[in-house]
């Protein structure tokens, strides 16, 4: 079966290479190498420890064609925009740059915001950095490198502070045959620079598709990057996303993975605290319903001393939905003074919903502060009774408590318009709440 699957993607790969004849040689080489890697690795099955709770049968059993650019109107896009966070936006439809939907105002010197396709030939940084961070030994990062058509390239020069959020939207639309798109984001934050980046993955229509994305974020010394990945895929979508964070000396990176919708989604976050005093804060929220399946796999690798990391992942699962959380903290030899915290809290709203959680610590040095905790449960019946005793009906009481549970993650997002938009989304999701935030 493995062989059959690889042959399928081999066909996809051939089709894709034919569609992209004029690429620079270095990229073709990178792709060939990546595809060889993918073939050698094969698709993971539930027999792999890291995939035991997420079955990829629906991907293994499908033939995918490369996704093609399609028409998306401003009006269709509108509901995925974020008020006050769309002054700068790059929009991709099915993995291809959508010029007309994008907005690139004059930007300061030292800042580059471009679709990768436009700078392939000209930007040397890109050639050096692309695909150098995300682990090529992962089948899906390799597949993305082989198959990506376009994506966002964001680079801030040293000491440049960009407070305006940059919104990258990857839209996928219906197609006749199941299609694969491979969004690719590369963010390079120079020394002491500051960037805010939002990636939205949104699905239009419900035809089966695969979105296999890779996001690489590099924060040089003392840089600060705030990143939010917003998942609003359709139920027909399998989303596989790898986020690679490379955090250098005294840099601060926060990355929030907000899973609002998707048929199946697997998010891998791999954070390497590569130099002394590097900090990262990784948070996630899952709101599962129907038969949705979400899987968040986090690895934080403390390589050097005095790094701090925190993880707060929360899932609210309803109906027959399922959430998986696996968080691993590695503290390498010599990474003394490390402070690593991890929290995973799960709220089960139905008896048929399911959560699996696996915290892991691998510590190879003394003098570290590590803590982790996981909880799973239902809404507190005493709190429900209390709210009802004050006049709220049962549905309202439950919604309010669920909102509060989920909002605890949203609160940590330090890009104001995104936080506000998400609070509003939560309010809508848990209808019957007053305007304004509880």
């Amino acid at each position, binding site marked *: 079966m493995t062989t059959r699957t690889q042959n399928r993607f081999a066909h996809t790969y051939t089709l894709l290479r034919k569609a992209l004849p004029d690429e620079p040689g270095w990229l073709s080489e990178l792709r060939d190498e990546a595809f060889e890697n993918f073939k050698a690795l094969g698709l993971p099955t539930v027999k792999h420890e890291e995939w035991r709770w997420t079955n990829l049968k629906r991907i293994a059993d499908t033939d995918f064609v490369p996704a093609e650019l399609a028409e998306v109107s401003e009006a269709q896009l509108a509901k995925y925009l974020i008020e006050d966070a769309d002054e700068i936006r790059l929009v991709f439809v099915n993995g291809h740059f959508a010029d007309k939907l994008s907005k690139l105002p004059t930007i300061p010197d030292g800042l580059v915001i471009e679709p990768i396709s436009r700078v392939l030939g000209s930007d040397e940084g890109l050639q050096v950095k692309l695909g150098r961070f995300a682990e090529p030994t992962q089948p899906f990062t390799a597949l993305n490198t082989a198959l990506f058509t376009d994506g966002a390239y964001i680079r801030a020069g040293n000491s440049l502070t960009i407070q305006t959020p940059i919104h990258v939207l990857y839209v996928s639309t219906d197609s006749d045959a199941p299609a694969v798109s491979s969004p690719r984001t590369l963010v390079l934050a120079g020394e002491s620079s500051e960037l805010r980046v939002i990636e939205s993955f949104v699905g239009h229509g419900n035809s089966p598709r695969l979105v296999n994305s890779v996001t690489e974020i590099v924060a040089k010394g003392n840089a600060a990057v705030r990143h939010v990945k917003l998942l609003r895929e359709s139920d027909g979508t399998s989303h596989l996303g790898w986020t690679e964070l490379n955090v250098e000396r005294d840099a601060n990176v926060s990355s929030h993975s907000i899973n609002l919708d998707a048929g199946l989604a697997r998010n891998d976050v791999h954070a390497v605290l590569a130099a002394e005093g590097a900090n990262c804060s990784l948070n996630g929220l899952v709101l599962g319903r129907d038969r949705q399946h979400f899987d968040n796999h986090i690895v934080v690798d403390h390589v050097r001393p005095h790094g701090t990391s925190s993880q707060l992942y929360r899932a609210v699962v309803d109906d027959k939905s399922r959430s998986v959380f696996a968080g691993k903290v590695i503290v390498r030899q010599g990474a003394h003074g490390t402070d690593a915290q991890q929290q995973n809290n799960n709220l089960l709203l139905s008896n048929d919903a399911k959560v699996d959680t696996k915290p892991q610590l691998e510590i190879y040095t003394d003098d570290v502060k590590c803590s982790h905790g996981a909880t799973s449960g239902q809404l*507190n*019946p*005493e*709190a429900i*009774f*209390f*709210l*009802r*005793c*004050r*006049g*709220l*009906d*049962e549905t*309202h009481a439950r919604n*309010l*408590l669920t*909102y*509060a*549970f989920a*909002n*605890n993650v949203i609160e940590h997002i330090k890009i104001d318009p995104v936080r506000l938009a998400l609070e509003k989304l939560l309010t809508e999701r848990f209808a019957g*709440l*007053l305007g*304004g*935030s*509880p």
Partner: protein
Amino acid sequence: MTEPLLEIKDLHVSVEGTEILHGVNLTVNAGEVHAIMGTNGSGKSTLTKVIAGHPDYEVTKGDVLYNGKSILEDEPEDRACAGIFLAFQYPVEVPGVSNMYFLRSALNAQRKSRGEAELSGAEFLDLVKEKAKLVDIDQGLLNRSVNEGFSGGEKKRNEIFQLAVLAPTLAILDETDSGLDIDALKTVASGVNSMRDPERAFLLVTHYQRLLNYIEPDRVHVLLDGRIAKSGGKELALQLEDKGYAWIEEEAATA
């Protein structure tokens, strides 16, 4: 003759199959203040929770009438909207929900059920300011999550604050005075006293006679082992303070 506001008739209540109340009778008229005292575990909180409609408590016999109608089939929120308020012995923490949002939702839910217009944000703020002064609650607490990280005294004050804002017809206070210092106790008492009204009744559960120095009850009842063992005027509370509960137990045994 006017109808009693609250009438409890031969009430038997079980939790998880164990009977806790073994036939409680109690009548409270509008305008009155009743105190309920009794030893630990005698069933005082159980009685208050049954009146409020807690789903874990099963009424196996008897009835609770409010304004002449049985409320046993009513949901807790219906009882709240009808004007029944319970201040909890152990106030619940609700992380992530601000006091202000919660209270405004509650008040508006109650107003809506009575066919009254919902209060706007500004109107609500005015009301809150007035009532916060009345119960001397720190404005800072109002913007925090309900009871989260509050001290014991702050939690009790917050219950009284909710009482003042929601202005119920029947207010049941379960040991709101326990653990309060004298200043806090006086504030709670003056809050209650300022709300005394011919249309409103209070049911005060307490362990300590001290509260009744500040809120003068019309009747005092002693709940022992799931039954009202003795009722009397406010002097009964003083006797209890002096002599404890043993003599009532003996009286009840020989009766």
